[in-house]
């Protein structure tokens, strides 16, 4: 359907894509959209490549995003961006976390972590590079990296009308609320107004 928007979140098992998709889909439902979200559990989660797909609009049918269909690709890990880039619309946006997690073949020294990924992606698509790891570290907990990326995502998708901070409050444990809101705001600030998709 033409008016359906597609958000693809990719990363490595354990990076917190599930919390982000939960906050994201909750906010979108509260804003009145029809929403479908899809993710795969099980074996892939053991350090494997993971993806979460969120589709929203007036009426959504398929829960999954096909090749060349994503309006935005948010990659929690640098190399994973490249694994999923073929799912992005040629005019779509990439939000890329400058954060490398070497996979098993790289750890074992069998292959090298590919170099120059960010530059290569910048040549191919509209790209925002975010050092969410550093930002999260400054805030005081490397784990809130995911919510930094959420901030950059919703700003990029022009979804700032939704009260995300309320959704975050309802989605995380009380002692982590402040930290996550800080992370969210930092993510929002990473995207300039002229970069917002109309």
């Amino acid at each position: 359907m033409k008016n359906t928007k597609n958000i693809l979140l990719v990363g490595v098992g354990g990076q917190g894509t599930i919390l982000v998709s939960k906050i994201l889909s909750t906010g979108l439902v509260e804003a009145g959209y029809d929403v479908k979200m899809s993710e795969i559990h099980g074996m892939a989660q053991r350090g494997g490549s993971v993806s979460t797909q969120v589709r929203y609009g007036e009426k959504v049918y398929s829960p999954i995003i096909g090749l060349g269909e994503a309006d935005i690709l948010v990659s929690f890990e640098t190399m994973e961006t490249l694994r999923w880039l073929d799912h992005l619309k040629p005019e779509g946006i990439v939000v890329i976390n400058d954060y490398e997690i070497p996979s098993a073949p790289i750890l074992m020294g069998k292959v090298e972590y590919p170099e120059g990924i960010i530059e290569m992606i910048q040549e191919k698509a509209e790209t925002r590079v975010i050092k969410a790891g550093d930002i999260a570290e400054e805030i005081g907990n490397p784990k809130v990296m995911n919510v930094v990326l959420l901030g950059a995502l919703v700003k990029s998708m022009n979804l700032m009308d939704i009260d995300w901070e309320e959704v975050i409050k309802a989605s995380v444990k009380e002692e982590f609320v402040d930290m996550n809101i800080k992370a969210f705001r930092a993510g929002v600030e990473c995207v300039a107004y002229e970069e917002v998709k109309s």
Partner: protein
Amino acid sequence: MKKLMTGNEAIARGAFEAGIHYAAAYPGTPSTEILENIARFKEIIAEWAPNEKVAVESAVGACYAGARTLAAMKHVGLNVAADPFFTMGYTGVNGGMVLISADDPGLHSSQNEQDNRYYAKMAKVAMLEPSNSQECKDMVIKAMEISEKYDVLVMIRMTTRLCHSKSLVEEGERKEVPIKPYVKNQPKYNVSPANAKQLHLVVEKKLDELRKFSNETDLNYIEWNDKKIGVISAGVAYQYAKEVFGENASYFKVGFTFPLPIEKIRKFAQEVETLYVIEELEPFMEEQIKAAGISCIGKERIPITWELNPDIVKRAIFGTENDTIEYDRSLVAGRPPTLCAGCPHRAFYYQLSKKKDTMITGDIGCYTLGGAPPLNAMDTVVCMGASVSMAHGAKKVFEMNNDKKRVVATIGDSTFFHSGMTSLLDVVFNNGNTITCILDNRITAMTGHQDNPGTGYTLQGEDAKIVEIEPIVKALGIKHVRTINPLNQKETKEALDWAYSLDEPSVIISRYPCALKKYTKYDLEEFGPLEGYCYVDQDLCIGCKKCVSTGCPAIHFLKPIKKSSINKVQCVGCELCLQVCPVKAIKVGE
């Protein structure tokens, strides 16, 4: 307000609203969360069973006793439960009964991608196929009505994409249904041959009634649009078809897929010019539609293998593809799943992988990853429990062929309870000579940490009797049993050497909690907390890569300086690498 729910959550909600009294399952991706969510409702007795056959049989007992019941499993779980399932097709129900089969097109987490819709046809059981979470919920309620009205078991066929994708669901109230009286009825519930012979006549009559129902029910409906193209579809494939054809086609949405509404389909077919059948995996509907003399296009175009998606359907029907960004995909390194940092299985397989002239039969669970590089310590994986019995058969043949090869079976704790016990009995009874290694990580780990008979807790987290593996093994007749801590490499090596020295069957129980497990009071008492971390003293590291050969994801070999390094955040301090390092370059951090 509507709520976002996964298909599994919606099935659980449906069970609650449908007044179900009893539910049982064995965990298996993608079905696991069904019972976990049902367990939240106090109104329902919900239980993890040791395996799917037991789950179905306990549900059948509850159903005959008058309760509304549910059993859930992944597709291959129904193979285990096929025996009671087929006979339920004959006896029918007292209280309503629904069986959820969660198939895995695309093999996201399974050993095959069998299409369980054929089971419904073969067992003569009614079948429903939802296409989103709302339908998952509604169809459990509908299944109960059909089950009790027609006196049949109803199967709901789910798929991974449905189980694990979220869509909006309108919640309703629970409808309390009284438990029906139990009346002894041998001709119905006791399938001795004389009774079963009559029951077969009964079930054929029931199928005639269900065929009539299928042609009348609004579970099977038509959406008229342009009549040049007609699409028959069911399950999540229907959503893909809607995505691809939009309003340029008319749809026959099949929700009740066995028996198929053939007469209604025939009328639909007469109205449209070209008729497509779009279904995931096998041509289940297509075969029956073609057998009824209705011409349609199905698997000539739509792939029979793997999961479908809108792209695949579009390419298959129209030959068109979306524009994509061109780039060199070969730059991307693989990212296969691995055993976690600190996984006790790794420590065990590290020692086992050193054994020469050995066949290692494996089983289903996290530890299946012991077969991946760099450990490569597993030759075979077939199905739950198979490691132990396959090892026995293989060893017998090696002996017959004067081959001295040793055969080692590796099986998890939950898998041992599931179907390894009878296999071990086979080894004892038939004078086998295998080494069975039970990798007891104190939880059903792969599916996301479900309790099992060995953990001391029920599905609801209430206290349960802890069933110990060692006394079971001994009671089955195994004389040589050792329980070891796999993180102690010396102890592990000694146990394997000891087992190899014996000329009789032995069992090694490798007992240590999953590195991701939230320790229970029993775990803390027995193992203490797993704390600390290890680091590499790079002045001492000689770059031999021994630590890397354990496959621990916390260890990274830094090529430019030819030294290892350990990621402190990931490391849990299991100290396997420390024991493996030949120059004591790995140390425990403060």
